[in-house]
Every structure is written in structure tokens, then in C-alpha cells.
């Protein structure tokens, strides 16, 4: 074999080959990611130019207006709405993060959030008017956290005991939750499929801002989750179980207990999000409460590399795109699903760019490295 090598080399060595690398510094890795985002934005800008007939700058101005509104004129309503949307998506991403770090693919954020929302609306309808607002909000909080936690606990138990496929289990739990909501809405809405906003148990408005409480709650969760994952013993156990269950067993971690505990936390945080959506935002419920954000949150958690603060950045960009591109689509009389395409495109770009962070391409003759 060695003897043949020199003769084979000229004919059979491929033009380039891919080598794994672990040495890229965090700063350089972020340079790659940021450049990917910039390239995607330039591409989106060009697409918007074609669609709307505006020039490049105007296209971005439209996006900016769509996301933030006229903040320079002192009108902050859109900005608050933007922050609220970021907060909800961020809350879902944070909820999923401990589970993902453990390599438990919780695709059930949608269902867990719906159940949390259902618990909230039941409390608001049944107890509203019979209790003071603050005790009522406490009851809402406890019950929606419990509801979300239970919805997350069920697949976790089967995962821990029988290693049941959690991706599909949690997915199916979403649809069961959706049907339960449909049933409840039908009963309470008197067949009209709409529950009118319930005036009880709503989160207080600060200033004249409806969303302030939600945003503060999510900000607190972000910091707590960062501390929990990075500095607590439980957070450490999660990362060991995620790396290798055998290692975890060897060092004496009770893997089953960690799986169940982590999913209860994940589900409970989804329950909190449900409460934020129902008691803090809509004051009502329908089957489209979460609107598919449970899936986007999975991607956010992954792209944020399980770091809550990076997730703030990522969700900020995605919501900006979603609202901004929806505005462009609206101006061009296109369907708002256009923003889903763009969000999907940017996420695929970001997923793809990880290749250039973890691998490098080596060419045959000149040992040049290709940078992204």
C-alpha cells in the first residue's frame, strides 16, 4: 500500500477533502455566523427590491418600520409589541433549552404551552370575580405551571423507563392538547369558536403598557436559566447526561431522575409561557395560541447554542425578520407567509454555516484553507 501511494496520488487524491477542526476561536466562529446573517440580509434586501420596486435602503427602512415602528418619532407601541413577541419566542426557547442540552428533543412546546394557557383561562373564567386580582394571578401561575409540567412529564416518564421516542411522543401530545383546547373553546364559546376576552386575572398594565410585566418576567427567566445551566449542580448533571448517558451513570448520576426532572422544568416553563400569552396578552384562548412558535423555538435554542443570552440575540433577529418581511410582503400585496420562507431560509443558512466553523476544506496542492 505504501509503495503504491506515490503512484496513486496523482490519480486518486481528490481535489479537496474535508478536515474536522476544533481550534476555531469563539470570536472567529462568531465572525462566520455574523457574516452569514449579513449575507442573508443582503440577499433578503435584494429579494425585497425585486418584489417592491424600492431601492436597497428603502427596503430595509420598510423592514425596520414593520418591526419597530416609528420609534424616532417617539411612538413606542410597535417597539413594545416587538419586545413582547421576542419575549414569547425567547421564553419558549429557554423552556426547551434544558431538555435539548440533555439531548431530549422536546418538540412539544406547543402542547405544553397550550395546556398552561388552558389552565390560565379556566382559572380566569371559573374564579374570576370571586377572588382579588393578585391571589387570582397566583392561582393562575401555580395551575398553569403545573399543567405545563404534567404535559412535559408524561413523555419524560416513558423516555426514562422505556426509552420511548420523545420527538414523536411530544409532537403527538401537541395535537392532543390542540383538540382539548378546541373542545374547551367550543363549550365555553357557545359554538362560536371564540372565547371573548376575560376581564379577570389579567396582568397589570405598567404605565399604559400591557406587555411590560411579560417582558420583565421573561428577562428574569433568561438570567435564572443562564445561572441554572452554567453554575448549578443540576445544570451540570444535564450537560453530562447530554454528552453521554454512560458517563453519567458511571459517575453516579441518576439518569432517569435527571430526564424526568429536566422535562418537568421544561414543561413548567412552557406553562409559564402559556400564562404569559393568556393572562398577559390575549386574555382569551384559541387553538392557534402559540402559532407554531414551538418549532421556531427549537431552532432558536439550537442556534443559541444553549446560551440564554445568545438566544436573546437570535430571537431578536428572527422576530425582526418576521415582522419586517411581513411588512414588505404586505406592501407588495403578498401573503404574510413570505416571512416564514425568509425565516426558514435564514435558519437554514445559519445551520449550514456551522460547517465552516467545525470543518475546514483542504485542497490538494496548495494547502490553502477556505474561509467562509
Amino acid at each position, binding site marked *: 500500500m505504501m509503495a503504491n501511494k506515490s503512484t496513486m496520488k496523482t490519480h486518486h487524491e481528490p481535489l479537496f477533502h*474535508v*478536515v*474536522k477542526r476544533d481550534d476555531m476561536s469563539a470570536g472567529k466562529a462568531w465572525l462566520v455566523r455574523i457574516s452569514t446573517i449579513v449575507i442573508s440580509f443582503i440577499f433578503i434586501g435584494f429579494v425585497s427590491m425585486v418584489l417592491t420596486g424600492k431601492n436597497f435602503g428603502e427596503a430595509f427602512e420598510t423592514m425596520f418600520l414593520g418591526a419597530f415602528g416609528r420609534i424616532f418619532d417617539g411612538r413606542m407601541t410597535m417597539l413594545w409589541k416587538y419586545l413582547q413577541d421576542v419575549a414569547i419566542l425567547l421564553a419558549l426557547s429557554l423552556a426547551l433549552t434544558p431538555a435539548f442540552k440533555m439531548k431530549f*428533543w422536546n*418538540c412539544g412546546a406547543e402542547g405544553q404551552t397550550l395546556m398552561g394557557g388552558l389552565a390560565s383561562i379556566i382559572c380566569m373564567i371559573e374564579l374570576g370575580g370571586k377572588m382579588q386580582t393578585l391571589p387570582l394571578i397566583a392561582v393562575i401561575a401555580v395551575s398553569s405551571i403545573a399543567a405545563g409540567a404534567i404535559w412535559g412529564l408524561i413523555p419524560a416518564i*416513558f423516555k426514562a423507563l*422505556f*426509552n*420511548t*421516542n420523545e*420527538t*414523536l*411522543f411530544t*409532537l*403527538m*401530545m401537541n*395535537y*392532543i392538547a390542540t*383538540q*382539548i383546547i*378546541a*373542545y374547551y373553546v*367550543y*363549550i365555553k364559546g357557545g*359554538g362560536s369558536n371564540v372565547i371573548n376576552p376575560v376581564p379577570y386575572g389579567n396582568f397589570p398594565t405598567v404605565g399604559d403598557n400591557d406587555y411590560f410585566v411579560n417582558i420583565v418576567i421573561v428577562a428574569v427567566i433568561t438570567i435564572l436559566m443562564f445561572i441554572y445551566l452554567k453554575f448549578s449542580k443540576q445544570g451540570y448533571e444535564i450537560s453530562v447526561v447530554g454528552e453521554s448517558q454512560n458517563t453519567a451513570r458511571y459517575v453516579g448520576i441518576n439518569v432517569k431522575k435527571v430526564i424526568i426532572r429536566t422535562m418537568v422544568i421544561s414543561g413548567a416553563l412552557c406553562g409559564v409561557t402559556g400564562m404569559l400569552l393568556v393572562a398577559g396578552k390575549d386574555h382569551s384562548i384559541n387553538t392557534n395560541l402559540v402559532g*407554531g412558535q414551538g*418549532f*421556531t423555538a*427549537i*431552532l432558536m435554542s*439550537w*442556534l443559541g447554542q444553549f446560551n440564554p443570552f445568545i438566544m436573546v440575540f437570535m430571537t431578536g433577529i428572527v422576530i425582526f425578520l418576521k415582522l419586517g418581511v411581513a411588512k414588505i410582503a404586505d406592501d407588495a*400585496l*403578498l*401573503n404574510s*407567509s*413570505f*416571512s*416564514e*420562507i425568509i*425565516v*426558514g*431560509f435564514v*435558519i*437554514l443558512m445559519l*445551520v*449550514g454555516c*456551522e*460547517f465552516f466553523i*467545525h*470543518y475546514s476544506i483542504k485542497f490538494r496542492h496548495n494547502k490553502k484553507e477556505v474561509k467562509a
Partner: protein
Amino acid sequence: MIIQFFCRAVLLGVPLLYGSTGEILTEKSGHLNLGIPGIMYVGAISGVTGSLIYENSCGNDIANMNPLLAVLIPLVFSIVGSVLMGLVYSFLTVTLHANQNVTGLALTTLGIGLGNFLGSSLISITNSDLPSIALTNTSSFFSTKLPFYDKLGVVGELIFSYDFLTYFAIIIAVIVAIVLNRTRVGLNLRSVGENPATADAAGINVVKYRYIATAVGSAIAGLGGLQYVMAYASGCWTNNAFGDRGWMAIALVIFALWKPSLAILGSFFFGALCNANNYIQGLGTETQELFKMIPYIATIVVLIITSMRKKREHQPPASLGINYFREER
């Protein structure tokens, strides 16, 4: 009544059968393609686009339409659309080693967005009053039944009353089953899914097998979307009407224990479950909503049972969901 129930169950089951046959083929190569729901949307909307172009070029007059072209053009469009999506998936996961779950979910977001976006754009182009596109002419070609089905009474109704894509689905499932279990290509494909390093050492081109399995799997899944629009929904595209069938197709893969032959029965069973709420007497609308849970609960029960009985032949391909990088051993 019972016969009608059975026929609806089959019609509802066929998109699931396409989806799960495609997914089985992909999963056998070791790739878990969670983009299938999006790919089925794209398959459907590409077919709709193709047939809309053809119908318009014939002046929307059924007399001018060539039956063969009316069927072939949507078929080709649908296959091209879904294969492109499959190639995006395999480029990211096979070539760029991206995480399969994340890529798949992003592709589903993209695919459903594409479906709804193109759908609503086409709706506005056709100046339809309703939020839907009606392709009744094309659909009439797609749902042409066998000429002798009504002469055979109940048997004809039960077995011969479907559109050709339904029979096509069963034929494809059988072919995939044969290819997987009885041919050298199938053996190679399974070895790629079980242990790509060994397959690589044996001289099998892992990358090629994974690309082809994903692309062909996506093409098959996309046909499910087309069948839904053209045969089940009588050529009527409405945004989001396809719903969560893609996810059920993926669940069906586990239900069928990665066997296309079992997927045939499983899909009809799922079709029946999806439809049961319409055929149980005396249900109020609210209880119907509860009964719509049945297929999902059935899936969960199946997931639990298959995971409890750890039979060796009922396991997923050993390296499912794990990317293969030759230099990493």
C-alpha cells in the same frame, strides 16, 4: 355506510402512505428527515402550480386538455419540487454535516411557508372569490376510476373505486419493500443506515446512497401531497388544509416498524381513525373535537408498546440521526 367509511379511510390514508414510504426509505439510509411535512406541502403546491399553468394554457377548457399531459405535468412538477427540497436537506446534513433534527424542522418551516405563500399568490392570480384554487378539470383526470368498478358491486366499490395515485402508492410501497429486502441495492442501503463506517469500508459510497435515498424518499412523500390535493380534495388547494398529515406520516414509520408493507395497513388504519369521528352516531360537535384525538393517542400507544417490547427486528436503523464523517472514528 360501512363501505363508504372504508373508502374514505383508504383515501385519507394514502397521503400518509406516501409520506411514510418516503420517510422509511430515507431513514433506512440513516437520515431522519423531519422536513417531510414541509416537503409534502411543496410537493402539493408544485403540482398545483404545474396544473394551473397547463389549465391556463388550454384556456381552462377541459375539451382542449390532453389527459396524459394533464396528469404528467403536475406529477413532474411535484416530483421536481420535492426532490429539490430533499436535495437541500441532504446537502446540509450529508455534505455539511448539519444537525438532522434542526435542518428538518427548518425545512418544514420553509416548506409550509412556501406552500402557503405560493398558494395565496396563485389564489390572487386566479382572481378567485374563495380563498382556494379549484382545479376541477385536472382533478377529474386524476380521479378517473377504473372503468369496470361499478359493475362489480361491493367488491368494486371497496377495491377498484380509487384514483390511480392510490394504487400507485401501494405499488410504490411494495416496490420499496422489495428493493429494501430483496436486492443488493437495498442491502447496501440498509448497511449504510446501520453502520456507515463498515459500509464505507466495504466500498459502498455512503454519500451517494444517502443523497439518493433522501431525494427519492422526498419525491415519494411529495406525491402524497399531490394525491391529497388532486384526489382527496378534488383539486382544491386551500392554505394549511393539508394540516399535520406530514407529522402523522413520520409517526406511521415507527408504527410500521420501518416496514413499507406494514405501512400500507397502518396508513389505512390511521385513515380510519382520522375519520371515525364522522361516522360514530350521535356525537355533538364538541365531542367530535375530542374524538379527533384518537389517531394521536393511537400513535402514542404504539410508540410506547414498540419501545417496551425491545425486539431486535423492531428497532430503527442503528445510526439513524447520526451524520457520518469518514475521518471521525
